[in-house]
């Protein structure tokens, strides 16, 4: 089964995302900020990254850029988990190399359906 890296500075959000993903049988690694996420992604190869945008230490957009610069993550799907309805954040994320986005508040079933399409 695929391994997913979930990055969010909010513990409750992290727990919910992890719980949702684990309930669907994915292996989940989580991280509390971009920097931690980047380090964890370096130590173990993951099949999908789901990251918050606004975080201390390193924000989600920078994380996407850093990951894309790593040869083993050039084509890995990276989804931004964001409440930013504004198109500019999404565009910024896309420009950094994000695959797409999931919106908070998330619906667990919808999230899983989307993930299933991204990592088949």
């Amino acid at each position, binding site marked *: 089964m695929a391994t997913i890296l979930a990055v969010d*500075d*909010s*513990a*409750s*959000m992290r*727990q*919910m995302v992890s*719980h*949702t993903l684990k*309930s669907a049988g994915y292996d989940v690694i989580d991280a509390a900020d971009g920097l931690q996420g980047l380090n964890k992604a370096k130590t173990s190869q993951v099949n999908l990254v789901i990251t*918050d945008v*606004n*975080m*201390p230490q390193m924000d989600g957009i920078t994380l996407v850029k850093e990951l*894309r610069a790593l040869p083993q993550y*050039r*084509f*890995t*799907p*990276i989804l931004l988990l964001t*409440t930013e309805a504004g198109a500019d954040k999404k*565009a910024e994320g*896309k*420009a950094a*190399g*994000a*695959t*797409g*986005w999931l919106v*908070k*508040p*998330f619906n*667990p*079933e919808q999230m*899983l359906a989307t993930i299933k*399409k*991204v990592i*088949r």
Partner: protein
Amino acid sequence: MALDMSQFLQTFYEESAEGLETMETGLLNLDVGRADSEEINTIFRAAHSIKGGSATFGLQAVADFTHHMETLLDELRDGRRAVSQEVVTLLLESVDALRELLSASQSNQPVDAERINATGQKMQALLGVEAAASEITQSVNSMTGGIHGWSIQFNPHRDIFMSGNDPMRIIAELNDLAEMEISLNADELPLLGDLNPEESYLSWDITLHGDLTRDALMEVFAWVEGECDLTITEIVDTATERETAAEAPAEMVRSEPVVENVSRVEMKREEKRGSGDGGSIRVAIEKVDAVINLVGELVITQSMLSTLGENFESGQIQSLRDGLAQLERNTRELQEDVMRMRMLPISFVFNRFPRLVHDLSAKLGKSVELRMTGESTEVDKTVTEKLSDPLVHLIRNSMDHGIEQSANERRKAGKSETGVVELNAYHKGGNIVIEVRDDGRGLNAEKIRQKAIEKGLIEAERKLSDEECYELIMLPGFSTAETLSDVSGRGVGMDVVRKNIQSLGGSVEVTSEPGLGSCFTVRLPLTLAILDGQTVRVGRQNYIVPLVSIVESIQLRGELFNQVAGKGETFNLRDQYIPVIRLHDIFNEPQADDSEFGGLLMVVESEGNKVALMVDELLAQQQVVIKSMEANYERVCGISGATILGDGTVALILDINGIIQMHRGRFNSCAA
């Protein structure tokens, strides 16, 4: 599949509370007129996290509220709006409103909807038209009657794989939406030798049949909008002659108030879950690691001892002793470390005070600076929870009654115009000491005495030292302010403070220098779970006396007690007559005949009352773990709890104050 998210609610509430503190501190740090974007960003991030979580948990009112705060903060951050006092005050008010909304939802209580709506409306008014505009909700194009399908030219850019997207995923998704005809265009595909496997060369012509909205279709392509050339054309029913999709669908503008109805806060959670507060604690990882480490050592000691026990010979007695000594050390360290887990820095309590002082200064029209030291001093979590209200009261008191009414008055007294309230925390002995100190006018002993006489609290002819006068303000029904203000004092002030502190096993003391200020010193035990006790023997039983209440112990050498009619016995201690309480009588223990000559008197003090307890023998001093009487049996007069001694027997812990009360009303029932 239904996923229960409510199990994460507690975490959300905890981190929201932290977020609100962060916001509050950040807002107080903001300088009016100057936008510190880093500070604003921190506040923004906190608001943002709360918004994300609350929306997910269905706390719509909270989400709406934070959304508008975010909008406002965003404007501040980008410099589109100046950081004015008005804005800061409004944001602080919003923090309060959020706190109320969250705690209401947590405890399942109704909220003060009027106040919250008022704050919401102020926010809306400030944001003005922009807010309304941002609430535009596009109506879904429901006019699908004329559409038979869509024709799509999908030409991914060469680098589409670089974003982790896959054209095949999109095509599969379209196929799920509706019946599809698809043709591949591979004209761009180079010869194998020139082909770069990391690039996309293909494009597709797709026809979808069926009633689909453009929105639904666009959603499939949302992630790759910038990474492909896309042409989407409606296949129009010729009979309706509709224009191509270039024409925008009719927009319906709907503006929604910030908090249209606060009662929307989800209150559905069951009662029992609502009352589950205080059930968890966040512990620093290093504290947990320390405990794990110690448990490891304990396991090693245990295995060493059991190896020793398997073939024990008398020659190994030294190794056994060493092992036992090590076990004792491990146990003690483990106990200390586990206790440390319950400890929180007192900043958890202090953090709200800058705000309190800020608001009160404005309300009282006094300029007051708060200085805090020792915020990292650690106290038991239960203590931090119960300490907040008494400290709030003491600070209010210092600002209202302590600091002079006007800057003018202070200048005349040769002081700086800004008053200072100090909040100091430190460890002293086995206690934590918290001082609330002001540099105001000090307490007026004579005025306090007059007031106490007026209120019938003391007799007019009674002589009192200044210190004793200061103590009077902690009597029930005392208030020095000539008029009651809404800031402090409705006459239910200081006595409640003292009662609360005493219920934590602590004490409050007042010192004051006329003209220079007053200082309230709160002393508290470090933890409520462990007590330093003196074991004493009374007849056949052992009892524990809290060490803090013991003043001294006297070996009787034939001194006689004085009988006072109707009031029992007293003992002359350095010309001070103090009541004698024979614990034998209270606990129904036989008393040795010569005890009056060979017995021991233990002088104890509680709430300023000194009494001498008659006991048979002083035994060990030790730390004991308090077990509640209420939880295991029922409340017993004169007993505050029980503990298990080293030899496995149970010893009762004396409640000195209770025993004094019992002695006083010897023939009345105990006022529990």
